[in-house]
């Protein structure tokens, strides 16, 4: 599938320091792209560049195959850093202003639909300064979605939200991604949450995009270990020695064997032990979480 967003050697320098350098990012149409990196890694800078907030020092951004500056047909809605709202006006009015600027014909209906989608209908006439952080985030999302843009750039959109709110936003994003085909680029510190719905991931470290991988790749590469529990653990070790380097040092309990980094062959191992007729109480394959996978890729000491 063609890339909807593609950056080539995208760089942004502040003084002598590069905030991002040579970022080559590929976001296919319809993807939910999770951008992961620790604080100051450059996630927000990439989003700001694509949202035209800042001007890149080098490189290109292609949107729908056309240079960003010349692209007039594909719209990018964004919630980058904090929601941008007029605090002394109501939620409805904030949306109506943007609807007017975008020339949306049935402004009120459009704004009402968005408020309903984000569960803000009951507080639509309340002034934004009276909103909680979570409500502001949701209104910020509604603002980003005005005119149903083809691309949504969301930087930490679930910050300050309660678990129910996070789940609701996740469902809503999946819904608009599936129903409207909206391509979403999202960053979040809550990697487990991101792992639940992103289809592609990009890992950024110190301003460089070090890896891009799909959810399938993550699932296939993130096997971590196999735990085998058996009353005949000596027989298990003896049998497995024929297939792989196994010894008694791998016993974590008297009847529990832990095989690290060999989990890709889990199916072979289970069949092999079954064929030998060895009774197993438990055979468990543990996967790496997105967070663990991220840490492995970034050197282990990173915190997203």
């Amino acid at each position, binding site marked *: 599938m063609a890339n909807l967003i593609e950056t080539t050697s995208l760089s942004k320098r502040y003084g002598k320091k590069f905030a991002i350098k040579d970022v080559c990012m590929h976001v296919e149409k319809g993807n939910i792209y999770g951008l992961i990196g620790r604080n100051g890694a450059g996630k927000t800078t990439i989003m700001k560049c694509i949202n035209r907030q800042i001007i890149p020092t080098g490189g290109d951004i292609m949107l729908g195959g056309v240079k960003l500056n010349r692209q007039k047909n594909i719209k*990018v*809605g*964004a919630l*980058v850093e904090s929601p941008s*709202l*007029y605090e002394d006006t109501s939620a409805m*009015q904030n949306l109506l202003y943007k609807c*007017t600027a975008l020339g949306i014909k049935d402004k009120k209906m459009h704004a009402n639909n968005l408020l309903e989608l984000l569960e803000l209908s009951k507080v639509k006439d309340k002034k934004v300064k009276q909103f909680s952080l979570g409500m502001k985030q949701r209104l910020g999302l509604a603002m*980003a979605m005005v005119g149903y843009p083809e691309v949504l750039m969301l930087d930490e959109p679930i910050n300050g939200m309660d678990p129910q709110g996070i789940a609701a936003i996740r469902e809503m994003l999946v819904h608009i991604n599936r129903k409207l085909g909206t391509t979403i680029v999202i960053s979040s510190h809550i990697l487990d949450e991101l792992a639940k719905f992103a289809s592609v991931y990009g890992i950024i470290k110190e301003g460089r995009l070090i890896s891009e991988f799909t959810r399938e790749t993550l699932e296939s590469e993130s096997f971590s270990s196999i735990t085998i529990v058996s009353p005949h653990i000596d027989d298990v070790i003896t049998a497995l020695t024929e297939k792989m380097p196994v010894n008694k040092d791998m016993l974590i309990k008297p009847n529990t064997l832990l095989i690290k980094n060999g989990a890709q062959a889990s199916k072979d191992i289970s069949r092999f032990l079954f064929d030998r007729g060895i009774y197993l109480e438990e055979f468990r394959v543990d996967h790496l979480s997105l967070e663990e996978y991220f840490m492995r890729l970034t050197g282990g000491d990173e915190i997203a």
Partner: protein
Amino acid sequence: MLNMFRMDLRRFLRTKSLYISTIVLMAVVIIASIAINAVCKYGSVWDIQDVLSSFSSNTDMKTEMYDYSPSVADATMLEAMKVKLRSFMTLEVLASAPFMSRLSYMLIALVCVLFVSKDYITAYLKNLLLLPQAKIKWLISKILILPVIIIFMYLGITLAALIGQLILGNPFPSDFMPLISYMAKTLVSSISFGLFSIFIVVLLQKRTGAIIICLLMSFNFQRLLYTLIDITKALPFKLSDYGLMTLTSRIGIDTPLPDTLLPVAGAIAGLSLVLSFVLIRRRDLKM
């Protein structure tokens, strides 16, 4: 472009600072009228001369009134002075008082900066960036709103001056042309100054800094700098002769537009426009 202007027009109508500033301007004119009315009833020769010095640059009137010495002015003369003062305080005199002119420039600068900088401090401008050429459209829209702001405030002053004239017991004016002509002359400076205010906001992308600079400019602070430059004789001409606010202060009801005002106002407006467009296109948005 038109949609962005529509949005700004909606916002303009809900801008509190615009209404507050206009009400302040109107209140000053009305309070001044009440004060003059009191002077006309109970004031001394000193009071009358004070009022004249604050309200008019009309030298003939001043000379005539200053000829009356408080020591020689008897009751009949005082009454005559009061009648003269009352009839002198017409719509255009009330609206064009020198202190009103300064106050209006200060408040125009304030409203402009508050209105334009709001999109920076709330970062609302970010929401509009999905439009093609959004930043340019945003700037043009703000430039188009500027005369609307100024005319709105002028209308407030005119209404207040009208009320003031009626408070003073003068008949409803039949001819608005002198006032319109005066306001048209000051509009040149106001628009130029407003464009300068927009440029300062675009340059600083900060509200407080922009307010301070524009307020200082509205009080003609730059004249001190021009005078310093003039003392050094580094330029072949006197820079203080070309100060926008200095030239603006010479605008009066009866006086013609200073010769150099149009070129100076035009140069400031043009430069502010060009720099604003360059800055908004080429600089990152700090939000």
